[in-house]
């Protein structure tokens, strides 16, 4: 379908598509097999200026918005979401600085992130604080001109590979979620180390590690916004980034469709290509319809976000929820269409199916998305005049 992209948006899409086809596709199976971080591809994306899509020009970016970023993420995801998550997670780490950073913090960090010279990452989750962010145990205590951070963040995408981390820690544990604050911590700071790389079901080329803080001292000016703003920073960041997960889902679903349509045209049973069977056509029809619906929703939400509205939580959660459920279903069906071949590692759809599952889990499980949407419904209803 034609979404009437501007020339610039079409260029972004073409460039990301070209990189995906020429640089990612040939190595995706190997990256998955070896669980190897795609540094070469990160360099290509950096050289192509894609890391700065959503960052204003004054900070060395391209000056686009969430929608432009979504177009790039979708194209990369069509080939491999292990690669696209490593790309997108840098944005997740950058948004807190973009949204809440001081002019000095923006000037210092955003150009490095926009150029892709340094990757960023976002550290929120802990062993005891997943969906319940109030369970955060990591603390930051002000000592003179420094904050001293202690605690461990878990399952941090780009952990160990990124150099700029935005981390949520409690500055006033007594106040619960209102006692959390956000900090910028650079790789190499004494007392800041990483756990081992996690072994995952899918998105295996991406790096997922623990961030370990042991009396890690950072300058006071690395506090983002004010003390106590940590959860607001986290929530606003996720509001911005969730359509990116939606784009990953749309791209992944489309990639699975591309593969299995191609296969169904070539695979012959009972003397005809299997695509001529209605059973296959109906499956493909549903897969395509659902994916297009997901794409339309994700694009609409991303454009909505770029109009800078007051509250995007509900729309943003809907995009992530719907698209990731579609991606899971479509990839399962893609394996089914390809039958035994689909189950073999020689073909890419089994990897796509393994990869899809994370989309329903990370950046808030789909159950949490429903909670967000539910809360928004309650708020809207309450706010309506009778």
């Amino acid at each position: 379908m034609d979404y009437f992209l501007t020339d610039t948006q079409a260029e972004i899409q073409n460039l990301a598509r070209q990189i995906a086809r020429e640089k990612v596709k040939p190595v995706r199976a190997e990256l998955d097999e070896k669980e190897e971080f795609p540094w070469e591809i990160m360099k290509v994306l950096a050289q192509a200026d894609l890391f700065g899509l959503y960052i204003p020009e004054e900070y060395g970016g391209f000056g686009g918005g969430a929608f432009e970023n979504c177009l790039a993420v979708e194209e990369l995801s069509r080939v491999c979401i292990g690669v696209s998550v490593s790309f997108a997670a840098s944005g997740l780490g950058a948004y807190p600085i973009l949204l809440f950073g001081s002019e000095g913090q923006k000037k210092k960090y955003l150009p490095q992130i926009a150029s892709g010279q340094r990757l960023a990452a976002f550290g929120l989750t802990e062993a005891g604080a997943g969906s319940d962010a109030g369970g955060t145990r990591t603390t930051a205590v002000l000592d003179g001109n420094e904050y001293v951070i202690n605690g461990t963040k878990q399952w941090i995408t780009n952990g160990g590979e990124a150099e700029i981390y935005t981390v949520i820690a409690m500055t006033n544990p007594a106040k619960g979620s209102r006692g959390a604050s956000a900090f910028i911590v650079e790789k190499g700071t004494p007392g800041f180390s990483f756990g081992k790389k996690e072994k995952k079901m899918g998105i295996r080329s991406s790096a997922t590690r623990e961030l370990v803080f042991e009396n890690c001292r950072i300058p006071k000016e690395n506090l983002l916004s004010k003390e106590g703003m940590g959860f607001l920073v986290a929530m606003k960041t996720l509001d911005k980034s969730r359509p990116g997960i939606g784009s990953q889902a749309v791209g992944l679903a489309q990639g699975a469709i591309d593969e299995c349509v191609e296969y169904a045209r070539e695979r012959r049973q009972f003397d005809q290509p299997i695509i001529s069977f209605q059973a296959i056509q109906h499956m493909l029809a549903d897969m395509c319809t659902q994916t297009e619906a997901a794409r339309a929703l994700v694009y609409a939400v991303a454009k909505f976000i770029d109009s800078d509205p007051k509250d995007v939580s509900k729309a943003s959660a809907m995009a992530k929820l719907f698209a990731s459920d579609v991606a899971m279903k479509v990839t399962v069906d893609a394996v089914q269409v390809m039958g035994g071949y689909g189950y073999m590692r020689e073909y890419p759809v089994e990897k796509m199916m393994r990869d899809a599952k994370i989309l329903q889990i990370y950046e808030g499980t789909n159950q949490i998305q429903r909670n967000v949407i539910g809360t928004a419904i309650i708020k809207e209803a309450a706010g309506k005049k009778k």
Partner: protein
Amino acid sequence: MNIAVCVKQVPDASEVKIDKATGTMVREGVPAILNPFDTYAVEEAICLKEKHGGKVTTVTMGPPQAGDVLKHTVAMGADDVMLISDRAFAGADTWATSYTLGLGLKKLDSLDLVICGKQAIDGDTAQVGPGIAENLGLPFVAYVRKIVDVSNGKMKVERLIEDGYEVVEVSLPAVITVVKEINTPRMPSLKGKMKAKSLEIKPLSAEAIGAEAEKIGLAGSPTKVMKVFSPPPKGNRERIEGTPDEQAARLVEKLKGLKII
């Protein structure tokens, strides 16, 4: 370093199909691309610029639409372009092309280096690079696979030969041709693409570069194409059928017949 890269627009070989019935090339609708060997030349020039500073100018001779490949080089990171285009250049062979490109290059100030791809994939002659060197009166090194060092007005390079490579030092300014091994060409960048999009290319005519009429185009070309034809049909003359064992046995018999074994 001020570097010029000579590039050519060629038909995309990967899109060229062969008509099975006639055995001739189907060229209808084949897209035009930047000659693949030239992408290595452009990449190397940009790398040198990133390392030593300076400017990269890409130069082509061709019809107005050849400006597209110049835009591609800008998207990769070239700073400036030169399109030499005039009906009078049509039919140029490698002699006339070298002469014409040489005149264009002479208009660029204080060049340190001219880089060309090893050859173009349509003509496969590999003659324009050395021809340009002669027209500019500059030293020439062919088949460079690595630029080792640039310092004190000299450049140290590794050049491919049949059974290995040579390490050669050449005084600058110079002309070199590069092979695929030298680098991996970068993707275009978004900012480069936007710059290329808005770029207006003004073609230079024969007059603008001060070309002598008897040295350009068909008239200035010593070689004349007498005939162009499809190679005699080959292939499918014989198929060896049977089980793998039988096929192998027949193959051995064939090779015996050919006195290869």
